[in-house]
């Protein structure tokens, strides 16, 4: 599978879309850091931007690439190699390419201008976010037949996770304001990879405010390392689970 991954990376690295994405991220990061002397404020701005852009590009680009390479996939299937290795190869290839763009566009500037606990958290959660949305793209792509539908579904997923979800959570909070919702809130957060990445960054940027909550569960969640561990583990699940389901679908899929 690493053989396939290698050649996919060689292909994607030269693709204009990926280069454009890298340049876009780099431009955003540099502009923010240059415009403002305050690195913490810079990190806040970058966080706001990447929570929207990174999932969008990751999911749409992966889906597009997946469908554009449909015939190539057929060719691979006609070769003596298992379907599992083919899909994993594709995931590693696409995933590491999109990840590379994030590393070059965000991690490097952050390392230079804002190397701190918050900076590291931003980098780690951004990387995990990238991979989870590549994984989600694989999940939807292996379950749809044509490209238009696949991209439509990818966009819907992005819209749901990036925008709609938190609105629904807020609505939920207001509807059940009189009940203790700590557990429910933490559980809801687990259902959205973007929220998990956000919580990780919150735990760095806003720990002072978060510590103001008296509820025992929040105290434990925010105060000890358990919030960080919880978010990290679930983010990894958000990478692994859709990929596993994609694998299951791909093994049975007619090409």
């Amino acid at each position, binding site marked *: 599978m690493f053989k396939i991954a290698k050649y996919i990376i060689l292909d994607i690295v030269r693709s204009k879309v990926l280069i454009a994405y890298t340049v876009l991220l780099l431009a955003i990061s540099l502009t923010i850091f240059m415009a403002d002397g305050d690195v913490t404020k810079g990190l806040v701005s970058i966080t706001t931007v990447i929570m929207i852009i990174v999932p969008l590009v990751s999911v749409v680009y992966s889906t597009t690439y997946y469908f554009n390479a449909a015939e190539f996939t057929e060719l691979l299937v006609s070769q003596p190699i298992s379907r599992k290795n083919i899909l994993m190869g594709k995931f590693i290839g696409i995933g590491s390419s999109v990840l590379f763009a994030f590393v070059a566009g965000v991690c490097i500037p952050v390392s230079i201008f804002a190397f701190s606990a918050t900076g590291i958290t931003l980098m780690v959660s951004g990387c995990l976010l990238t991979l989870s949305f590549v994984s989600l793209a694989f999940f939807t792509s292996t379950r749809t037949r044509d490209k238009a539908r696949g991209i439509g579904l990818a966009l819907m997923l992005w819209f749901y996770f990036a925008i709609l979800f*938190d609105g629904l959570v807020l609505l939920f*909070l207001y509807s059940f304001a009189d009940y203790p919702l700590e557990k429910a809130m933490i559980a809801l957060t687990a259902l959205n990879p973007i*929220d998990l990445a956000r919580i990780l960054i919150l735990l760095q*940027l*806003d720990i*002072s*405010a978060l*510590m*103001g909550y008296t509820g025992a569960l929040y105290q434990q969640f925010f105060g000890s390392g358990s919030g960080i561990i919880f978010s990290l583990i679930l983010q990894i699940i958000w990478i692994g689970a859709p990929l596993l389901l994609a694998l299951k679908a791909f093994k049975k899929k007619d090409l």
Partner: protein
Amino acid sequence: MRNYLLKLCLLLMLPAAVFGRTIIVSPHTQIQTLKKAIDLAKNGDTIIVQPGLYTSINTIVNKELTILGEGKPVLDAHHREEVVTITSNNVKFDGFIIQNSRTGSMRDFAGVRLSKVQNVTVSNNTLLNNFFGIYLSDSNNISVINNHLSGSNNAENSGNGIHLWKCKYVLISGNYVTHHRDGIYFEFAKNSTIENNVSEKNIRYGLHFMFSDDDTYLHNTFRNNGSGVAVMYTRRIKMLNNTFTQNWGGSIYGLLLKEISDAQIEGNQFIRNTTGIYMENTERIRVTKNNFRSNGWAVRVLASCYNNYFTNNNFEGNSFDATTNGSLKENYFSNNYWDKYEGYDLDKNGIGDVPYRPISLYAQVIEQNPQSVMLMRSFIVNLMDKVERAVPSVTPETVKDEKPMMKPWKR
């Protein structure tokens, strides 16, 4: 001639009267306790205590003495009584380790107690595991300098580090207080100065004022206490150039102000506190030239506060700049720098052309529904705040900085 002789005699006797004798206390001499030395001494004498462990069950200093510990001798009360009580004026008490006072709810047992005295200096002592540390009552012109106080860190068995009751003109300088209930406590203590102290990890407050007017505290650090400093029922306190940091938790504040008036809060650093300044029933407070950085809430001003002025401060990296619990009136913000300000400065005078509203919509939301803290920095929250800033409808109309600075104040 007789006159001259008399004068000569007096002159010869003077050194004894002015400089006094020196008495040495040591485990190896006849004078083996401080108590015995005090019994032998006269006003003006000096007692030097040599290294060793001495039991001191409430040794009472009732003469005008200079008592110096040499190489940090230990005075230990073995939890039976107070360690040392000073009841005479003009005492200097310096260089001891004072430990294990009795604890209990009946009396405020202390490591060193000063009662109804004047011109006393307590300096360079280490107080360990005492119920109260240094306890001053009804005393004036006292100096408490360079002491190191560490309590038991047990909520039930912990009194205050440096405790003042009905005192005037006290200088508290260069002390370190930790693991006590309140690091430094002032009740009816007036015209006093607290400077260059560090108060951290105390169970309640780093520094606590009750009914204590006209005091000044400056250049102190209050770190990781139950709250940094609490100023209550007090007037005309000056709070200058202090650092309030890492005072974290529910109902924990960097600086808590309650029922106070005419205070000056200037040049302080509020860094990484859950709430930087909390104000309840305050009047005529001037908050100026302070830095608020990385706090959960930089300032929380309740609706019961009037005529408070926030000017020339920097607000940077706070989760929320300001909140309140109702409609806030007659509190004024001006010429502050707010890192969240997104306005413009067309006339290039360094002051933004549109006002800044420090209370965001989400701050209001979280006020009503604290559990929504999990949504902080989400897209929906950012969107709500942007819309509200563009078209204010829920946030208090009166709370705004008409002259927000474009760049932070350099200090």
